[in-house]
């Protein structure tokens, strides 16, 4: 009779094997010389050789002119726009000259240090939140409460001798961060509820979810922002007012939630029916089954899609340009109305594009890393 290793008991028995497998050497990589590499990757057919040569000439030409424009002939620092006008290259001085209004908008000039503190706290908190070591409730909850308290104090002020700054004066990069965080934090729970609602067996719940999701996905974000700014106040009783920024954040959050809900629905559909049946057999109710069994698996499956929409939410904060909130892009556009410096808009917009690019690209690379972490446990 052969001995059967029970599936549940194999963890300890196989541990040395797994350890050995993990520590074993990687397969040998093929070493090829530079010439062979060129032959294989750039000149492997007549067509490819032609393409390579054409592309190389174009890259070299554009690359050299870009380096000349952006580095060699560029003006790095000056307070006089005439110096830039005479130079042949880029005028990075426009960023040195205008970075305060670009990054911080119309926030009172002498209080900008508060925004820098808030930004540093924010970036540190987000970085910690994204580190697996901190994925514990005992760390994350106090961390975010403390961070929000510090950031709120810094942005609003009004306590500890700081002057009060109305949210209408917030601007620049901190406003982008507030809009982004607000959208994701408010929108994500709504998206889960909508996704569950769309798969509900109760027809009324399902109908409401489907109507909301499909109508929101059918209209541009601009119309929703117009609605939040121009129409929504009409629906409130007399004398009641809701802060414009709050209305905008809720509008963007619902818009975000309706796209995210479709991604999460995809994850929910991928869970085998046996998981639901097993949970019910254990006597779990709907919410406990959803929270303990279904969602952890579903969210893991659709993680790439979720991150894509979170990145989209970051980029979508720039739509507030249309309704006159001063995020980093609006502030830059406003700064570029200055007749002395307006001809250097390319440099200014490249700078803003670089800011967005760094955050979005970092988020997408991070999500690829998380996917690797999550798949690590599945290799055996």
């Amino acid at each position: 009779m052969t001995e059967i290793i029970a599936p549940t008991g194999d963890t300890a028995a196989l541990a040395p094997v797994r350890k050995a497998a993990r520590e074993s050497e990687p397969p040998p990589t093929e070493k090829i010389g530079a010439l062979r590499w060129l032959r294989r990757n750039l000149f492997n057919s007549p067509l490819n050789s032609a393409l390579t040569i054409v592309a190389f000439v174009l890259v070299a030409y554009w690359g050299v002119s870009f380096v000349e424009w952006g580095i060699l002939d560029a003006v790095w620092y000056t307070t006089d726009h005439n110096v830039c006008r005479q130079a042949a290259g880029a005028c990075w001085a426009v960023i040195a000259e205008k970075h305060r209004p670009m990054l911080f908008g119309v926030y009172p000039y002498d209080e900008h240090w508060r925004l820098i503190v808030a930004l540093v706290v924010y970036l540190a908190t987000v970085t910690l939140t994204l580190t697996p070591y901190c994925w514990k409730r005992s760390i994350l909850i106090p961390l975010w409460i403390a961070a929000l308290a510090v950031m709120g104090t810094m942005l609003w002020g009004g306590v500890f001798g700081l002057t009060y700054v109305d949210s209408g004066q917030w601007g620049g990069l901190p406003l982008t961060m507030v809009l982004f965080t607000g959208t994701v934090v408010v929108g994500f729970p709504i998206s889960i509820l909508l996704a569950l609602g769309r798969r509900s067996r109760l027809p009324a719940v399902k109908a409401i979810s489907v109507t909301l999701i499909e109508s929101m996905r059918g209209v541009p974000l601009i119309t929703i922002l117009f609605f939040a700014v121009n129409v929504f106040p009409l629906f409130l009783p007399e004398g009641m007012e809701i802060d414009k920024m709050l209305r905008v954040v809720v509008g963007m959050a619902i818009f975000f939630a309706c796209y995210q809900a479709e991604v999460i629905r995809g994850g929910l559909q991928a869970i085998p029916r046996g998981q639901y049946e097993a949970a019910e057999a254990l006597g779990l109710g709907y919410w406990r089954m959803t929270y303990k069994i279904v969602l952890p698996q579903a969210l893991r499956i659709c993680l790439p899609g979720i991150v894509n929409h979170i990145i989209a939410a970051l980029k979508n904060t720039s739509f507030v340009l249309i309704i006159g909130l001063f995020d980093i892009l609006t502030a830059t556009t406003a700064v570029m109305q200055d007749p002395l410096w307006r001809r250097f808009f390319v440099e200014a917009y490249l700078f803003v594009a670089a800011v967005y690019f760094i955050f979005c690209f970092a988020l997408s690379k991070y999500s690829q890393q998380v996917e690797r972490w999550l798949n690590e446990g599945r290799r055996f």
Partner: protein
Amino acid sequence: MQPERRTYAFAVTECMAALEASRKSDTSILNSLAFRGVVYQVLLASGVILLGWYLYHNAHLNLERQGIATGFDFIGERAGFSIGESLIPFDSAQSYGRALLVGILNTLYVAAFGVVLATILGVTMGIARVSSNWLISKLASGYVEACRNVPVVLHVIFWASVIRALPPPREALNPFDGVFITNRGVIYPLPVENAIYPWMGLALLVGIAGAVLFARWAGRRRELTGRNVSTFWPGLGIILGLPLLVWLAGGAPLEWSVPALRGFNFQGGTSLTPEFVGLLVGITVYTGAFIAEIVRAGIQSVPHGQVEAARAVGLRPGLVMRLVILPQALRVIVPPTTSQYLSLTKNSSLGVLIGYPDLVNVGNTTLNQTGQALEAISIMMAVYLMISLSISIFMNFYNRLVAIRER
């Protein structure tokens, strides 16, 4: 669990049955799943209805107090503003309804151009990304990463600013003979209208129909006899040859209206406005990056064995792409591309930022002049919903054509 389709009537009868069962078995009706479901739904529905009534009530009071007119009567009134570019004749004496129609047509116009150009750009870049040529694939991924990680709003504003910063007509860039790029837009020559041109268009349609019929006949013949009939050159001949014959029969009229500088601006030819070009370039470059990613994922989803098998039966690389990879990749590519087309159409509303008179721009002017925000925004939302719905219906139809056909 598979969601079940149930009607209210069915739920109520089930609820009665649950009541009956609970009476018999001594369990409380509160524990019955069906009963709870009905209660939850009644609560939710009444909550939604109450909220809706409350909002309606407030809006009614507010509008009355502020003396804002309600209803869609303003559509027939005189608009009083002019629109920079329009596909149909429009002047400020015409109605708001006509102005909105101009806006809708402009939205569709830029979206149609955008969809075509973004598809061409995206497919090219997507194929380039999977190219075996290292330089080409790196260049394509550089484009994709740089463009999709920057907001579309920035793309549009950037390109609009670039066009505004171009030289004025007197110092226009002149890349090809007759084509001028200036800060007033792109000006290019156009043949002078002639009675023969509509007939050439008709001949083109007849030619396309003929080519399709010829391809079908060739396919049937191949099935029957096993002999291959080349369809590419004869098809091209039919499509291009018929209009050419009509043109020659009409006396081969060819008179170009070539733009020429008169005073401060160009006369002759036709032009694309700077707003149109800025918006088009912005949304095309942005959406193209997303389509490139979709195309790359689609091509990589085809198992490598398929390519090896196709090569083993002796197909040339071009044919491997056309006959083996693309038909399988399209199944993966079509659904997400649909949503990219939809988002391109919706992003064309960014025209309002740079002064392109699209639907949102005209609607916004209407809103500001009449003060009827609720109605103006409802019209915009309804039109976009209809456009989105039409695109999805068409793309779903196309998707059924390319979807996998299993026995």
